[in-house]
């Protein structure tokens, strides 16, 4: 009952000052719309980068790291002594994972694992023309690789089955193929770092949409690489693991690191740069959104203050005829909430429209990323957040003028 009167008075005030109401509303609308566009776009970028990076990289990778960072003989013999060793070099050792195929089979049996692909990769030079072009040749079991990376869906030309059928086949990255000026059916000579050479036939071209991969990788069958570097059929350098749930990869990687004496890297470590970028974008979104909302809040604060000043006589009369401070607060808070809610709803609509327009705007990222339009994420959560922020901002901005209104001394006004 009491609120009903306050609501009626608030409504009358708003309707008789339509222009002022609209201006206050536009502030909120603009703030919320920009907030929604910002967060949708930034989260879209995050999602896109995360997806493409996660897609193209293993959730967990096991490999042998060759470093010079190992205890020397003298340190082992005389651990408490003052030992100085100059220019320690990497030891002559193989990058081989011992029993790699057995380990792969063992890991594959874990229920949370989607698949394991044992690989042997090596640096090679492609020889076309006079300049050797460096690249990485990954020797894979195509079927296992398909299970992990859906390779068949990334083929721009040729089929993955052609690789299985052709012992000398190679599938090249799109940019690498362009650099080498090779198409399906062409032949190319490669030289490995250890001196082995081989003639390969291009059977397909793939694209992950990531420059660093498409520009420098070729897939061949595992035996081909083993032959090229003169190693036996058990020679495995990498185990790529995909989990059913990517978030479980970190814990699973730690577990593997305990079990095996090899270097274990999860996707978060491998993509630290992307995750750092994500954090920066999140902070940016927060700062900009917060600024927009504060500006909208000050707008409402000013207009509500003006409103209270204009209505000072009305407030005095209401108090004189028996309305108390809470009634007066209600009258002005209701006005703020109406402005906030309507502004926020309009902001949500405009924010959605702008986000949609952005999502269909062509965006040429060049070869760096395979993307045609701006990445925008549509998530109802953002819209809900926008409305909540809008209402909270207006509640805060309306509170102080309302309290001022409630404290007005009617006698001072009514004396004239």
């Amino acid at each position, binding site marked *: 009952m009491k609120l009903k009167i306050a609501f009626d008075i608030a409504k009358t005030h708003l309707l008789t000052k339509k222009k002022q109401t609209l201006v206050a509303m536009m502030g909120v609308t603009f703030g919320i719309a920009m907030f929604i566009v910002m967060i949708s776009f930034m989260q879209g970028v995050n999602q896109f980068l995360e997806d493409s990076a996660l897609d193209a990289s293993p959730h967990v990778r096991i490999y042998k790291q060759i470093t010079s960072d190992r205890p020397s003989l003298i340190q082992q013999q005389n651990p408490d002594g003052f030992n100085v060793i100059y220019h320690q070099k990497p030891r002559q050792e193989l990058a081989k994972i011992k029993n790699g195929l057995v380990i792969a089979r063992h890991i594959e049996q874990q229920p949370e694992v989607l698949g394991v692909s044992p690989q042997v990769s090596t640096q090679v030079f492609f020889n076309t023309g006079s300049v050797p072009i460096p690249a990485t040749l990954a020797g894979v079991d195509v079927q296992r690789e398909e299970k992990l990376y859906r390779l068949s869906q990334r083929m721009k030309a040729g089929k993955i089955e052609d690789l299985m059928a052709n012992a000398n086949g190679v599938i090249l990255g799109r940019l690498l193929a362009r650099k080498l000026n090779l198409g399906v059916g062409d032949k190319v000579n490669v030289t490995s770092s250890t001196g082995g050479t081989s003639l390969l036939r291009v059977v397909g071209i793939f694209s992950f949409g990531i420059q660093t991969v498409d520009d420098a990788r070729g897939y061949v069958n595992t035996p081909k690489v083993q032959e090229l570097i003169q190693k036996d059929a058990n020679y495995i350098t990498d185990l790529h693991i995909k989990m059913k749930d990517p978030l479980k990869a970190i814990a699973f990687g730690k577990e593997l690191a305990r079990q095996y004496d090899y270097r274990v890297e999860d996707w978060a470590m491998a993509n630290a740069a992307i995750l750092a970028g994500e954090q920066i974008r999140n902070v940016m979104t927060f700062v900009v959104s917060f600024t927009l909302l504060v500006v909208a809040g000050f707008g409402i604060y000013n207009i509500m203050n003006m409103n209270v000043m204009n209505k000072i006589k009305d407030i005095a*009369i209401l108090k*004189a005829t028996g309305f108390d401070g809470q009634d007066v607060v209600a009258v002005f808070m209701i006005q703020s909430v109406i402005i906030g809610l309507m502004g926020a709803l309009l902001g949500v609509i405009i924010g959605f429209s702008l986000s949609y327009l952005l999502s269909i705007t062509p965006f040429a990222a060049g070869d760096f990323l395979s993307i045609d339009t701006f990445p925008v994420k549509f998530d109802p959560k953002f819209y809900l957040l926008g409305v909540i922020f809008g209402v909270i901002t207006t509640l805060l901005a309306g509170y102080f003028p309302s309290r001022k209104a409630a404290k007005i001394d009617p006698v001072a006004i009514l004396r*004239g």
Partner: protein
Amino acid sequence: MKNIPYSERATILKATNVNKFFLDPVKFQVLKDISFEVKKGEFLSIVGKSGCGKSTLLYILSTMDTAYDGLLEMNGKSLTGLTQNQLAAFRNEHLGFVFQFHFLLPEFTALQNVMLPGLKLGKFSSKEIEERAYQKLKLVDMHEHALKPSSKLSGGQQQRVAIARALINDPTIVMGDEPTGNLDKANSDMVYSIFRDISHNNGQTIITVTHDPDFAEGGDRIIEMSDGHIISHGHEKTVQ
């Protein structure tokens, strides 16, 4: 009421040793030791030269001004020291006030202005309150303008609407600060007869500040003020 001797009638409002100072621009005492009583159903007028403190006194009696020394009681209960919210509720139910300058909410119709204190009190449904508001407007001959925005009414018309508003909750006491200041003779007489009627027949108490000698003479008693003092408490007249 005329059968009961004045001294035996119930005291509705009592002020004891009320003093008030204004500190701005210089400290100055507006009201000096004001003490008086008003009986239930009494039609009291307060007169005095301009600037002698009549309005100031009326604002204190109306409970809107709480910055005074002394004691104010209604029906034997102290109003001094109540919280602002308690006083607001008290005003809503027991006081009707007509201001010296007509004060209505400009964006609302005459009818809405009259209804508002009734809606706040919430004793009747809004339908009943609307009917009652129409009756009160009819009393002051403003029912034909009920649906006009009050900003479109003349000064005198606004003052009559304000009187209707003061009456909406059938208050125990109606206070007026020159309630007929803006009215012509005919309308003044109408307001006078309304006040006369509700004090005589409903037992509602009237306290008005007035400069109109006829209006004052027509009441039950006249208090005369000068320079912040009450110089005459008047005497109860016999009422026919």
